[in-house]
């Protein structure tokens, strides 16, 4: 419950404050958000599976974000930033889908 509240508060704060995204962070933010979403879905699934561990969740969340940003950074340096971002988004999207499918089986039993 507290976690859901945190998410809602974050969205509200982001909409209200509307801070200027620093130019350095700007290209990494979308990918980082997608990676974090993947981690959250993984965590939700783990919770439904009964194997949720907060330490694991924190580490996976942060490492997901960092690795995703790193990949984009590397891609930019190599000149394939756009393609690599697409690749990362596709991979994370597939993972989100599979996690969502597992969650669905738990929640709806179908």
């Amino acid at each position: 419950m507290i976690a859901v509240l945190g998410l809602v508060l974050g969205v509200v704060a982001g909409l209200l404050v509307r801070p200027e995204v620093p130019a350095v962070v700007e290209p990494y933010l979308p990918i980082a958000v997608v990676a974090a979403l993947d981690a959250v879905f993984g965590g939700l699934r783990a919770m439904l599976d009964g194997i949720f561990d907060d330490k694991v969740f924190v580490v996976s969340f942060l490492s997901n974000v960092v690795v995703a940003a790193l990949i984009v950074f590397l891609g930019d340096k190599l000149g394939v930033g756009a393609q690599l971002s697409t690749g990362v988004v596709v991979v994370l999207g597939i993972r989100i889908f599979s996690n969502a499918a597992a969650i669905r089986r738990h929640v709806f039993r179908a």
Partner: protein
Amino acid sequence: MNERDETPSPKRTPGGEQDDTPTTRLRRELPQEVPSAAAEEPGAAPREEKDKQTGRQRLAQGLWPPRFTRAQLIVALLLFGLGFGLAIQVASNNDDSALRGARQEDLVRILDELDDRTQRLEEEKQGLEDQRTELENSSDQAEEARKQTVEKERQLGILAGTVAAQGPGITLTINDTKGTVEADMLLDAIQELRAAGAEAIQVNGVRVVASTYLTDSDEGISVDGNKITQPFRFKVIGNPQDLEPALNIPGGVVQTLEKEQATVTVARGDEIVVDALRAAKRPDYARSSSQ
């Protein structure tokens, strides 16, 4: 990266499931759902144990009642960050979204196109401004020409007697009770006035112009075919200081008339109004040769 890759913590997953890989666990769990669903029916309730919770129950337990555990707070913090980033990204993506996702080459191309377009529009603007200046000049010239034409028309109208005129001048009144004044005497008076610089003349309501003629008729004198009788009242616009002496010179108009027993009075005026008009007549034969 994902929870599934990690070793589950023992306290949450006691029993034989601890060593299961997630995939096998998922497959095994699916058949388990069926008895647990059936367990909700009355009579089967005792089979339900705390360790054999379904995912749905765990979810409900996590959601309510809210517990301020360390795990919940940490997860809330991370999710706050996620929501924050999500909102920022969505908000920043909403504005000028067309250019935000564009690649560098595209941006350079768009910039080039914009530069070209700006240049073209600038040239067009320059051309239109030139055109406007030209038109303004020509309309100014047309306006000036029109003004001059109007002015000229007015001047010529005064000469031709088609417009009224006013200005300083004199009034010449000839009382001819004996009937001795003849047309040639009035013509002399008119000639004298013209020679003295009269610009507009009318006699008893008849405008005197270049083509004016005077004839003697049975009872009086006719001017341009209009019969006039005494007293003959001349209204003359011109310089009074020229006109009056011109009439009064010895042996001039006044003396000649007085010799004929007529009474002549000359009065200066600052605002003589010559308002007798004459229809403009288009010449039948004479044509302007200047054009």
